[in-house]
């Protein structure tokens, strides 16, 4: 008996050929660029419910975090950014379920996109990727030199050659499913701070 795969592909192959346009170039092009990408990015992060801070370095990030009452109260903080204290080693956590009470995650973003306020993060050297979603507050730290204009520049930097999880994250989790009223903090983080640092 023919398998489902054979039948589906067989049916498709028997069909009258559809005219095939060539695949277009999508990375190179006259795409939007901003005179001041930092302001554009900061405004967009604010528009999607997050906060963006432009600071010199890690000590400024720490100072800013310590001004938050939520951060001072936080019982469980995980940081993967050198120079920012972490409460525990993620590799010693056996199951992702054990991260339910995570308050803050501080993580390096690989690059940030000015056109839509998205930051690329991956689970490289990360045992439990659930931290991005289960934490109450997400803090991302990105060097200013890694701020790009648009998504075409973004995908130029990405290759997917090995099993890996990667994510464009833009603002805290949100829902408008109740009468189109925006509610920040759906299932993922309730707040997101982005720090653009020198370098």
């Amino acid at each position, binding site marked *: 008996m023919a398998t489902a795969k054979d039948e589906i592909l067989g049916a498709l192959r028997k069909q009258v050929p559809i005219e095939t346009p060539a695949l277009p170039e999508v990375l190179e092009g006259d795409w939007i660029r901003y005179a001041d990408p930092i302001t554009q990015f900061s405004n967009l992060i604010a528009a999607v419910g997050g906060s963006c801070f432009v600071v010199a370095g890690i000590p400024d990030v720490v100072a800013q975090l310590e001004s938050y009452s939520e951060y001072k109260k936080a019982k469980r903080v995980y940081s993967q950014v050198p120079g920012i204290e972490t409460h525990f080693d993620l590799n010693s956590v056996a199951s*992702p379920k054990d991260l339910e009470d995570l308050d803050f995650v501080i993580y390096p973003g690989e690059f940030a996109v000015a056109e839509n306020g998205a930051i690329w993060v991956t689970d490289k050297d990360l045992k439990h990727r659930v931290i991005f979603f289960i934490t109450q507050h997400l803090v991302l730290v990105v060097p200013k030199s890694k701020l790009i204009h648009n998504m075409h520049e973004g995908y130029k930097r990405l290759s997917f050659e090995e099993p890996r999880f990667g994510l464009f994250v833009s603002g805290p989790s949100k829902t408008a499913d109740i009468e189109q009223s925006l509610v920040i903090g759906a*299932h993922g983080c309730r707040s997101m701070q982005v720090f653009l640092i020198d370098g």
Partner: protein
Amino acid sequence: MNAPIHKEHAELATEFVHNRERAKWHDSSLWFVRQKRDRQTHSIPEWEQLRELAATIKRHTLAKLPQYLEEFERNATRMGAVVHWARDAEEHNRIVLQILQEHGAKKIVKSKSMLTEECHLNPYLERNGIQVVDTDLGEWIVQLRNEPPSHIVMPAIHIKKQEISELFHDKLGTEDGNNDPTYLAGEARTHLRQKFVNADAGITGVNFAIAETGGFVVCTNEGNADLGVSIPDLHIACMGIEKLIPRARDLSVFTRLLGRSATGQPITAYTSHFHGPRPGCKLHIVLVDNGRSKIRASEDFHRSLNCIRCGACMNTCPVYRRSGGHSYSTTVPGPIGSILAPNRDAKSHGDLPFACTLCGSCTDVCPVKIDIHHQLLTWRKELAIQKVVPWTKRVSMSMAAAVLKRPWLYALGGKVARVGLRWMPRWMIYNGLNKWGKQRDLPPPPAKSFREQFRSRSKS
């Protein structure tokens, strides 16, 4: 014509507009989203170029679909996923159940997937002793109400916050009469957190599957898909075979179009790229045909498979906004759904291509440039050929054709109408036979016909 298994669109729409205030509210909620979409698209100078690129990529992919499906399977397998193929909804459901049973999974968290709605996966799994929780807030609300989503992106757009408050009070014991969306969403978050943490498996849909890398992308705002597949050891991703794109770089076009077209956001809050399972975990991908290859065989309608399910055509459609998603009686309602559904069953969904004013607004906003209103018009012709339009419509159309073919009869008809409309009593004009006049009056008849006016003008 066989009697349809559900009420016709016009009948359900009549029920929907019966509550005028509510119908107005529904209309303006969707128009609000359409306006957000416009603001976003106007902020991108190259918007039209992006639409053109997206349309070309999708046309290319559809033409070479068998090749890209095989390439995707090869690469997804190399990444460590297990790929399954399903001819129809029943086979899809059987495969998902079998995977769950092999893993002893009983409690499932599912994020929004129109495909699993189309396949009626939830009732099938429940019949087999598996608990499924829809975790998108809107989808969870409609699941608790035991009804289907009324929109593909905003499943609960037809429900008022008072009704959600009552539902939550009834099912979860939340405060009676507290209609605050922040409070209600917070209660849902707390309740569903426990479901996420205790789930045995997560099921997601797929927004884009990349042939070249064997990965796929899932877009959400709530973070529910990601939370649902980052805790349990098993992830099942279900996708229609038309979700493919050739290259990862093509996402640079689609991620710019999707969020802006769907909800007027610059991008969804989470745009997740999955390549292979988490270490020590399992990832299964189910590729589903369920009528898609049949649509691809149709020269008239195969372009409808390019749809990326953004919902922009629904938000802009004057008929959808005023009749509600449930009036379509299909998983995908609105303009695009009215093309897809008759392909599945022309007898049961033949009313849908007529639930359209042919205004063309859907075609204008479609991010992949599907000629939606042209295809709806083509469907009307096709349905007339197949004789699945109601006899009343067929008889009136052939009468119209008979009149329009004979100029003398047309002129006579006009004369009779001009005199008759002026002198006939109201009940003779506005009755059951005049559907057009149900909610509006005819314009006052002119003294002379156009031809008479034209003739007297050319004489002088």
